[in-house]
């Protein structure tokens, strides 16, 4: 299990590195003259490429972040292992649900 989580986190990290790079570039590009809903939605709505991009992004983040948070909780809090695992499962689900909802909203 530990090994699987480790591999999942590092593999997602490798992909996320690329996605975050694009995301950061887009942030800097998009805020040039302020953010507006029309601008954001104009870029994303009906665009299958962005939909895939953000869908993948959400999925990877929902894998990557909870595994990292789990280690932090294990090391920096004295919480029992079962509590930590439940919290992280919950966090993963929260990210998945809210993330896909957001993707659905903007495409």
């Amino acid at each position, binding site marked *: 299990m530990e090994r699987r989580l480790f591999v999942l986190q590092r593999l997602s990290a490798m992909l996320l590195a690329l996605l975050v790079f694009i995301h950061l570039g887009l942030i800097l590009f998009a805020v040039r003259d302020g*953010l507006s*809903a029309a601008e954001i939605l104009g870029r994303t709505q009906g665009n299958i490429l962005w939909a895939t991009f953000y869908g993948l992004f959400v999925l990877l*983040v929902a894998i990557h972040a909870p595994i990292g*948070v789990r280690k932090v909780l294990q090391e920096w809090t004295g919480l029992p292992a079962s509590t930590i695992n439940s919290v992280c499962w919950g966090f993963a689900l929260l*990210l998945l649900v*809210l993330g896909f909802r*957001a993707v659905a909203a903007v495409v």
Partner: protein
Amino acid sequence: MREAERRGNLYEFGTLSKRLPRFARNDGLWHKDIFLKPIIMNPLRNHKSYIAAIGHRLSGIALAIFLPFHFLLLGTALEGAEGLDAALAFTDSPLVKIAEWGLVMLLALHLLFGLRVLALEFTNWPNHAETLSKWVLPSLVTSVFVGIIFLVHAF
């Protein structure tokens, strides 16, 4: 029994030290109870790899906390562009802008420090740990720079 002894004995002394987050504690060594000294003066922690590791971790925590809110904000577009515009209006306040600036910076930092971790773990060339410690300062500078670009445009 041995296991119980082992876990029971946390060897963390001092009073203030116990209240510090674990990464800032000094583990019962003599520099205990002097705030900040455990981080800056602890000879086991005042090196670039530690700065990178802690920076990576703290930025990760901040991003994890921020993400659900980011998704919620974008989710407001479910109610059409008006919903998203209303939400974006909220992000116009300077305070939120500052927070966003911080997060953009942290995202860049987490990315750059994360690349370092991947290189440390999955590549193998002579002295790579030493060489990669040179990656730490440029990462910090680059992240601040990215943050500044964002801030200049955002206002």
